[in-house]
């Protein structure tokens, strides 16, 4: 079990729901300030997006952020370099599409990510069946590889994915790309299917845009992942302050949910 998963399990064991925030690396010159603000406001882990030209799993918000970051000349190297100035206390996971690592070199990518303080990766177009080379590289550098489980995933695949995923299992709430529709959708069902076969922490993502949704999702899972809602604030020029406010809303909502259950 990799470090990140031990940490995340520990949070669950402490009875606290996990809030994961997504940020696009390089989208603004001061993008790491947003990440810091989010950490300050209470996220438990951060996904760091590395922009890709063809983000097949992302809706319009993250697409725009990627485009903006690319226009600014953002690369794996630049994101990792920026991370040097980020003071962080929570796990960071790189999120991008496989071609970015494939092109940079798997071994080289994993090494760079690890030395830059990242502890895992999420690659939405890299399904289990194709993941072996990347997992091997990640293993070598202690990086966790997170897998997604979808509402359409068959029980037999849920078992294999739950077994393979490291850090947590990413339960996608709906059959949609990021930032498309909102609500907790099939999240509960997906989480249940994972819990049936594994004890890995399981967070609901895709479509969580309001505190209420986050609260509802957290109630039936170990945590929630918020992406487009945060990125939208940045695209709208909200700044670290805007991020702080929004993260606090989510934090409060899921904590309240826990209390009410407890």
């Amino acid at each position: 079990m990799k470090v990140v998963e031990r940490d995340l399990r520990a949070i669950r064991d402490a009875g606290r729901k996990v809030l994961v925030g997504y940020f696009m690396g390089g989208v603004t010159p001061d993008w790491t300030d947003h990440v810091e603000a989010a950490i300050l406001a209470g996220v438990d882990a951060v996904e760091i997006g590395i922009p890709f030209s063809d983000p097949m799993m992302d809706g319009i918000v993250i697409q725009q952020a990627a485009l903006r970051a690319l226009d600014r000349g953002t690369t794996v190297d630049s994101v990792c370099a920026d991370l040097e100035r980020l003071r962080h206390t929570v796990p960071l996971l790189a999120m991008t599409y496989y071609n970015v690592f494939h092109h940079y070199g798997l071994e080289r990518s994993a090494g760079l990510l690890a030395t830059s303080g990242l502890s895992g990766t999420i690659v939405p177009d890299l399904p289990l069946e194709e993941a072996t080379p990347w997992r091997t590289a990640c293993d070598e550098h202690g990086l966790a590889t997170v897998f997604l489980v979808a509402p359409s995933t068959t029980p037999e695949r849920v078992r294999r994915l739950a077994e393979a995923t490291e850090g947590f299992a990413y339960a996608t709430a709906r059959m949609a790309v990021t930032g498309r529709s909102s609500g907790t959708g099939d999240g509960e069902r997906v989480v249940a299917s994972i819990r049936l076969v594994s004890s890995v922490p399981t967070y609901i993502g895709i479509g969580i845009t309001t505190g209420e949704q986050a609260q509802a999702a957290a109630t039936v899972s170990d945590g929630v992942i918020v992406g487009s809602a945060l990125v939208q604030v940045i695209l709208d020029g909200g700044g670290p302050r805007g991020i702080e406010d929004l993260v606090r809303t989510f934090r409060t909502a899921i904590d309240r949910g826990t209390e009410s259950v407890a």
Partner: protein
Amino acid sequence: MTDPATFMTAPDGEGRFGNFGGRFVPEALMPACVELEEAFRSAWSDPTFVDEYHRVLREFAGRPTPITPLERLSDKLGVQLFAKREDLAHTGSHKINNVIGQTLLTRRMGKHRVIAETGAGQHGVATATAAARLGLTCTVYMGEVDTVRQALNVFRMELLGATVVPVTSGSKTLKDAVNEAMREWVTCVDDTHYCIGSVMGPHPFPWMVREFQSIIGHEAAHQMDELGVGTPAAVVACVGGGSNAAGIFAGFANTRARLIGVEAAGGAAVVGGSPGVLHGMRSLLIQDEFGQIKEAHSISAGLDYPGIGPEHAHLAEIGRAEYFPIGDEDVLDALALLSETEGIIPALESAHAVAWIAREAGHLLPTGSTVLLNLSGRGDKDVAQVRAMMTEQS
């Protein structure tokens, strides 16, 4: 080179052709890809399905398409040139072969809707056509830039009852239309089939589309025998995603014929690309030094794709097929050449293959050798553009 009898067979269990192919899709789509693979395997070994596929190709799409001996052009170039006439297939290109297969499969899977991506509109029109024939609902994703450039094809699809959705993301062209179709497919994969337009995408698409297009090559091999010519020295086809090339190559892969794919110089994934992962497959792609996909640029919208089907990447790697780029400037000349010597106005895509033959006759194509050109489509769709460009030139 390995034993010739082993080329262009089915991919391996992971959907790989050598080092290329595979299935790089979001988890949400994995079950659909698996289901599709099973459905295709079952259908393709079911004589009822195969018979209906052949019946529809014959009765609806106009197959077999003929092989035309290009007598005057042969005289001019000093090679014995034959053209496989996919331009005569319904909707004007080979694209119809694939969509007939896929729409029949859609119905067999109990789905009642198809989505498709399109660049210039050829595959979109073909899909809308095949969908109309079966009464399937059809939505076509098309880059916004292309919907403006190809407004008539948009209207054509609408006439055929399809909905055309302009894609405003990314470069607003073909590759973004593929992305968007994939994104949409995620949301409706239960009742909707994604009818991909070339030998690309995740397994089983590259294999399935090649199988549906291999009718071209099988017919052609038979027809060349009937004409008393037999196996040609070379088989030449243009390559965008690579479906018409794969289709005709399939009939000659296990012969001594040289297999030649002609890419647009501005989108030459074999010559100018490197291995990468896009649109569900590992293949050769044009990309920058950071792995960002570049936009392809070609005079012909149908070759404006930054990748190539994985089986071609494999055939190139093992040396069974060769790929050459042709620049825009040679394409117009080739289009005019075939038009005025043979009375056939080729599609700009197909004109790439003509241009290569015209250039290499007497060089890579020895004088007197027999050459089979895959005339993948007709040029009617391009006439307005060609006119504008020729007027500009003069």
